[in-house]
């Protein structure tokens, strides 16, 4: 809780600092302050590890799972901020706002990991999203940025409407927003739940599925990922995704979903896997590619989510965290390559990377392999665990399908690797400027992908 407060305050502080950010020094101050604050938040969350009690009259409860997720969120945000120092070097105005907004949406993330009341869930989602609507439009002069922002906003609030409808119906049946009560109701009449209750759960799930970009509610994500500033995209595809899945998990685990709804969700999983992987095959723009790949990963995560095993939280946490680390690293590398390629975002800007900067190329390979799920990387262990859960839950056909889709996935990651390791035709390979800090962050991501792959128990609740 204190971590949450700290972060909110931190946001305000950063905003104030923003007043002086006209001067370079003021701007240079922002990220360090934010990072230090986040470190503090991290410390606070960890120290509160065992305060596993309902707070604020059953509004939130920081149990182990939520704490773990919170820590993950904070760590990832820190990495992004560390890169931000370099990223916002070129940007003049609203830098402070960017940091502040990310922090605010982090607050939303915290709520999502720890809510025990539908109202908090709702507020969490909104607090997470609204700053992102703005951040997506962060590059005000860029048409694509604006478009991304608007699409995100439009579709987002549309989904919110459904989500609210869902909550309203749940309330109508259970006469409460307290998940404990909801669960009680669900368990008491599990065999014949009230039609409106099912309806309500369904709409709520729709809202959440939108947040995790599950097909067919995924349409926003490719456009938004592509249009938004790269850093924001990184933030969205990592922090937001993690938080959203935490929320989803909490919702599913706290309100036992009826079988019929499970069925629908399984179908949704299959569709998500299909769309994500198949469409990603033909992407030339790397950011879009990452968007689709993240959709695909949502598919795998949904599989784990639905398995409803005792290990689900653990697996989800491992998967999202390692996925986030890999993604952050890749987006940073992308930004660097993009600069070198003068603003071009397509895959072939990686060509000749190995010549230009072997280490970077190798890290890229590791990260991509991790996303692809090749052994010894974290991504592999993650996928393997997902399969175990799915098979354990008896989704044999679905997991067979998932296996095939994983193969498809490997294909487009391998294509990028191939680019990175084929020398450029004219022999002139891009010149990447890598500041030590970036190098550090990237290396961290790469090593963690290997480390967590080799020692999975390091990332466990």
């Amino acid at each position, binding site marked *: 809780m204190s971590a949450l407060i700290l972060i909110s305050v931190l946001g305000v502080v950063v905003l104030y600092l923003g007043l002086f950010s006209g001067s370079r020094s003021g701007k240079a101050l922002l990220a360090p302050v934010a990072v230090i604050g986040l470190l503090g938040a991290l410390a606070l969350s960890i120290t509160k590890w065992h305060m596993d009690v309902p707070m604020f009259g059953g509004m939130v409860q920081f149990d182990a799972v939520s704490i773990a997720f919170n820590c993950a969120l904070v760590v990832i945000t820190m990495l992004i901020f560390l890169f931000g120092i370099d990223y916002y070097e070129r940007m003049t105005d609203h830098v402070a706002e960017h940091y502040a907004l990310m922090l605010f949406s982090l607050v939303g993330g915290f709520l999502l990991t720890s809510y025990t009341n539908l109202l908090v869930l*709702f507020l969490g989602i*909104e607090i997470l999203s609204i700053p992102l609507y703005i951040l997506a439009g962060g590059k005000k002069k860029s048409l694509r940025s*604006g478009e991304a922002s*608007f*699409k995100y906003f*439009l579709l987002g*609030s549309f989904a919110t409407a459904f989500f609210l*409808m869902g909550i*309203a119906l749940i309330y109508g049946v259970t006469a409460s927003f307290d998940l404990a009560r909801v669960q009680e109701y669900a368990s008491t009449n599990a065999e014949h739940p009230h039609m409106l209750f099912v309806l309500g759960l369904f709409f709520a799930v729709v809202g959440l599925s939108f947040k995790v970009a599950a097909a067919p509610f995924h349409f926003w994500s490719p456009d938004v990922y*592509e249009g938004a500033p790269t850093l924001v995209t990184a933030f969205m595809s990592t922090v937001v995704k993690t938080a959203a899945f935490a929320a989803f998990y909490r919702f599913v685990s706290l309100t036992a979903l009826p079988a019929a709804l499970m069925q629908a969700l399984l179908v949704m999983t299959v569709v998500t896997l299909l769309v994500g992987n198949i469409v990603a095959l033909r992407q030339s723009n790397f950011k879009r590619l990452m968007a689709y790949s993240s959709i695909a990963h949502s598919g795998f995560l949904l599989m784990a989510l639905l398995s409803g095993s005792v290990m689900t939280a653990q697996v989800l946490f491992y998967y999202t965290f390692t996925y986030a680390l890999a993604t952050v690293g890749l987006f940073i590398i992308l930004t660097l390559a993009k600069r070198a390629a003068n603003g071009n975002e397509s895959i072939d800007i990686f060509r000749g990377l190995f010549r230009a900067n072997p280490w970077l190329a190798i890290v890229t390979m590791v990260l991509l392999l991790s996303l692809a799920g090749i052994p010894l990387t974290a991504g592999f262990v993650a996928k393997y665990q997902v399969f175990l859960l799915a098979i354990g839950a008896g989704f044999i056909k679905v997991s067979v399908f998932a296996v095939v889709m994983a193969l498809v996935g490997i294909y487009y990651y391998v294509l990028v690797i191939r680019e990175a390791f084929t020398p450029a035709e004219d022999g002139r390979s891009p010149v990447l400027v890598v500041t030590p800090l970036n190098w550090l962050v990237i290396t961290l991501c790469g090593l963690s992908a290997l480390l967590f792959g080799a020692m999975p128990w390091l990332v466990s609740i």
Partner: protein
Amino acid sequence: MEPVVSAIRAVPLEHYVYLSFVLFSIGLAGALFRRNTIIILMCLELMFNSVNLLLAAFSAHHSDPSGQVFVFFIMLVAAAEVTVGLAILVMMKRNVDSVDVNQLNRLKW
């Protein structure tokens, strides 16, 4: 207070539910229907309000205040969203001199 009670009890809950469903659907249809983004935003507001109505009805039905509190929060959020939405709209209008949804198709495939 008796008349009030009788009045509230007189109108069956179903009718409130139906009404809010209808409003919701109208809003939804409108959101799909129109190209003018402003009006789409209005339709969203309409959908929110249908939910509000539903919540209020339920809260009255259960005579439990939390429903109304929730409505209160929804209003807050709606206000915030509209603010942001309109801001985005303004920015958009400034960039591409239009508020037509179909003009927004640079990002695709």
